């Protein structure tokens, strides 16, 4: 179990680092006044600083609570449920970049339905083929929007 207060601390640290990074990145472009007005880095510099300061305040508030309460942020059971969902999703993104979105959709739908939903083979297969085909007709034919494609589409001449 991860406590909510510790999650608050970590995330406030993350946003503080983000703010600091933006402010630091902005200094490259000048954060002062030039004859043509404020330099390009000025606005992001102060925004980054504001984020960092507000985050530090959040961090302080969260640190005070760490010792006091131990409300859960997420339980072990919830972590498992989230991972069961998130890992295949990450797999889907990796597959999409490699095989294209249509083929990845088919593999992902089939995998989740067959191995997590325990659907019969034909049922999972039907959805896994039907969904990408329907999307292809709708997007490529209907709206003339082209999606990321992979080797299969290339072999089919698209």
């Amino acid at each position: 179990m991860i406590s909510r207060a510790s999650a608050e601390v970590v995330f406030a640290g993350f946003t503080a680092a983000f703010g600091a990074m933006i402010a630091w990145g902005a200094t490259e472009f000048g954060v002062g006044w030039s004859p043509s007005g404020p330099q390009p880095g000025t606005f992001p510099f102060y925004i980054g600083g504001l984020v960092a300061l507000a985050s530090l305040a959040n961090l302080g508030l969260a640190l005070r609570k760490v010792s006091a309460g131990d409300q859960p942020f997420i339980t072990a059971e919830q972590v498992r449920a989230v991972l069961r969902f998130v890992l295949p999703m990450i797999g889907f993104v990796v597959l999409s970049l490699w095989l294209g979105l249509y083929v990845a959709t088919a593999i992902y739908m089939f995998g989740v339905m067959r191995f997590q939903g325990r659907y019969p083979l034909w049922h999972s297969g039907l959805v896994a083929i039907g969904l990408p085909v329907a999307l292809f007709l709708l997007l490529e034919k209907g709206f003339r929007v082209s999606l990321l494609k992979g080797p299969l589409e290339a072999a089919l001449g698209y």
Partner: protein
Amino acid sequence: MENLLALLGGFSVAVTPFHIGLMIVGVLLGILVGVLPGLGAPNGVSLLLPLTFSMDPVAAIILLTSMYWGALFGGSTTSILFNIPGEPSSVATTFDGYPLAQQGRATEALSLAFLSAGFGALVGVIVITLLSGFVQKFALKFSSPEYFAVYFLAFASFVGLGGAPILKTIVSIGIGFALAAVGMDSVSGSLRLTFEIDQLIAGVSFLVVVIGLFGIGELILTIEEGLQLKGIHAKVRPRDVWRTLLSMPRHWATLLRSALVGVWMGITPGGPTAASFMSYGLAKRFSKYRDNFGKGEPDGIIAPETADHSAGTAAMLPMLALGIPGSATAAVMLGGLMIWGLNPGPMLFVERPDFVWGLIASMYLGNVLAVVLVLATVPLFASILRIPFAIIGPAIVVICFIGAYTVGSRPFDLWLALGFGFLGYVFKKLDYPIAPLVLAMVIGDKAEDAFRQSLIMSKGSMAIFWSNALVATLMGLGIVLLLWPIITTLFGKVRSSA
């Protein structure tokens, strides 16, 4: 009078078979995204937006706004039948909607919700019709400092009235501004904050961010909470609808009060969610049947629904007239306007009256259509929710990532959507508000430009933001809103000690 003539012109633009067809498609798609877990109005509009890039702007905005109305209705459907708010703004509807449906009065609960929503939306559109001419004349007096002051006011009201922890709201707004600044600087033309990552040169698209934050983030949260769908079967009988319609005038006070709350919160960007909660609270305070709230009190459905929809529609007014969106969905549409090559703001009324008034006219029609369509299709959409999550969940994931890719055909956007999905999940878990981030991303560049141009005008002096009555009033109002939580606590202390 001028406005009425313009509105008639708008109807002649909006009422074509093609546009009405788009309204129907938009409303139905909207109900679908409103009903499905993880998809909501901002996300649905983001997914559809890339498909409208090649459309005529009038047709495109009709499609997108109709989707918005549909999504608002879909959100209330799941609130009432499943006790799952499909939209954050329909959370308050669950308080009394679900109990009433549990008592076997699902039709009554649904009709109450849809009819009061329709009423709220109509009040919102009427206010837009009456005020837009005025706001436009007012806005034509604006130059850079005034624009910056209005942006400031918009963000201040998020901080002061949004209801989320103040520091977290500030972090959320700041992250949005920072993301908007990535890529080409519109004033100097230099590349900023790319950290030598080539993929960041084109900037970070707010659409991809919305799809990640709202879509994927919401899905992860749904999974974590262990989705339990215990739905109530709904059959909408026309007779019950009719009876509910006849009972509506009895609730006139709640209807009117809620519509006003909604209009106010929609124009000042408090947004529909805050409006519905505020309206529910007020209805409870003024009701004779206060004890019945939470147990299926009709006023407890009417109040949040009316306010939700009047805020949703009223949010279009600042979007069109000032270029400031009053809700996350309006922010996405505003981004769409810019992509279609329109320039939101007072000049839009002068340059493209057909667009503005066509949109306003379509809002009248679209909302009436939406009430009818949602009543007719509720059983169908409720049955979609009974499809097991092992099918519907991954299908929504696929649609989100395809949507993210269609924004700019960049493979990198798939990673961005994933990353923002995790961010959205953590934001939700830790009570960081998401809407201010989206708003800051969409108008970040414009706010920055207004700020820089003001300083160029004043040669670097901040006094320009106090240089005339108009800008000083706006800034003063913004500061009051910013300090509002502190002011109310102080008042509370004074009162309790007295």
